[in-house]
């Protein structure tokens, strides 16, 4: 199946690549409101968009990671409440994941991806909780109805459950996406390199 794609023209392959990438985001968005058995812990489900952002950012630059986080965060804002925005937490996650990998502290395999997702899920929940607390004194929006105690009690529940669930489900999304992107790179990269060498 993958071999068929390697025979494609690089330009066509790039188009297919973008379609697959956008398609995978869309699948993540569709799973978000779902609560399937095994996907719920204390009425919290995995943070699929966070898993996607981590999978995307692991082998990319910090800038690309941050942009991906920003885009997915904006979409999630549309699907829930835009205030506080999800874009900030996901952009931070994308940026940090990309930086983390660059330093080569962590070898790249399933376990490490799960670990990164675990940490990032806690980070994302904390950023959101800080956003909620930050807005609290303003007392002008719906968020203002949450007291600090409620926010941080909720934070414990959400951070822990979403971190556990997301890290367990992370390989399910990371493995196919990573395989696909690796394949595209192996086909496209050599051709780009030869083009560059010719031009010089």
């Amino acid at each position: 199946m993958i071999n068929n794609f390697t025979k494609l023209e690089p330009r066509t392959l790039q188009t297919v690549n973008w379609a697959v990438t956008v398609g995978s985001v869309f699948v993540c968005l569709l799973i978000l409101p779902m609560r399937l058995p095994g996907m719920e812990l204390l009425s919290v489900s995995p943070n699929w968009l966070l898993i996607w952002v981590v999978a995307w950012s692991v082998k990319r630059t910090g800038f690309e990671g941050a942009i991906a986080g920003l885009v997915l965060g904006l979409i999630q804002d549309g699907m829930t409440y835009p205030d506080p925005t999800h874009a900030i937490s996901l952009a931070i996650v994308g940026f940090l994941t990309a930086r983390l990998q660059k330093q080569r502290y962590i070898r790249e395999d399933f376990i490490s991806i799960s670990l990164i997702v675990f940490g990032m899920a806690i980070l994302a929940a904390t950023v959101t909780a800080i956003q909620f607390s930050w807005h609290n004194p303003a007392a002008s929006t719906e968020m203002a109805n949450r007291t600090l105690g409620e926010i941080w009690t909720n934070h414990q529940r959400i951070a822990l459950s979403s971190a556990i669930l997301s890290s367990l489900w992370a390989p399910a999304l990371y493995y196919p996406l990573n395989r696909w992107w690796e394949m595209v790179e192996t086909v496209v990269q050599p051709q780009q390199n030869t083009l560059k060498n010719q031009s010089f």
Partner: protein
Amino acid sequence: MYALRRWWDRNGVKLGLISLAVGSALLLRQTQGALVFETYRWLTQPFFRDPAQLTTQAGTPRERELEQRLVELESQNQELQKLLKYVDKRSDKGVTAPVIGRSSDHWWQEIILSRGSDDGIQPGFIVSGIGGVVGRVVEVTSHTSRVLLISDPSSKVGVTVSRSRNMGYIRGQSANRVIMVFVDKVPDVRKGDVITTSSLSRLFPSGLPVGVVESISFNKSPAPEAVIELSAPISHLEWVIVSPNPKVAEAKAAEEKADAQEPEAPKGSETAPATPQNQLTEYNLPQESIQQFQNRPEAELPAIPSPEQSAAPPPTPKPETEATPSIVAPEATSSTPSDPPPAEDPVPAETAPALPAPIEAVPPSPTALEGSGNL
């Protein structure tokens, strides 16, 4: 110039792709994810049973008997209301909708329904499940709608104790419990009392069953609190009934009227029979708390008309607060510092007997209890 062109050659495509991605994300955000929800609904449609099948299922003989008695009592009630020339603003038409999803975020308690504006649902409509009120529609696409549950911490609903008419508001705690904060220092409330939406609620019509008192703590400051067990099984709802909200319709009509006429134009259709004194004594409040209530600063008070005003129609509501149903409490400030951890126990569906709503006096004015968090 050459450098710029080289830069463009290298990064032009990337820049284009980034702006395309951000642009489409903003578009999705602007349309409230309509595309995603419509696709989701289309995909999940085959897996959900027609709610009509569920509603027509025959119950046990006991249930059938109770239903028949309910019909009898309802018709009696209507007769009596006719005699009293009582105008019921509640309409019975509702849309049955299957629940196809939950919130796409962990911080908000929401459900997604498979009926939308094509079925006549609008933001602000009331959603109820078996046993009682569940939430309020906040966002609608053509075939789906998003409902903010009353168990969400941001939902503040004005409620009253059915037996003693003591009032307060509820604050969501997630799952099946909510906290009721009383207006009164010494409320007349007991374990097992039925809680319904109050006539002072701005977002919900009065008399909808909410839940049952589970425990009470009188020594909470600034006001006593009670834990309410919601009568609708919020954590495993399968289908719900969406009905129009007379309060929102009223507010809209009032706003249109206010726009058409001068801002201070009185509303002719509504009359307020109760003076504030009657209204408060009817709730069994002790004398001192009535005085305390009346001596509050104007900003915190729900506007209760004075005796001479009560003969005249109530003032037109402020358009900016009344016309936005998606915002629950614009100027609420909660000052309870410590809260018990959220209860997570699932609750069996048949815990609470949902009492039929008592005939409520016409509210003195469509005021906001939800907005005044310190009451």
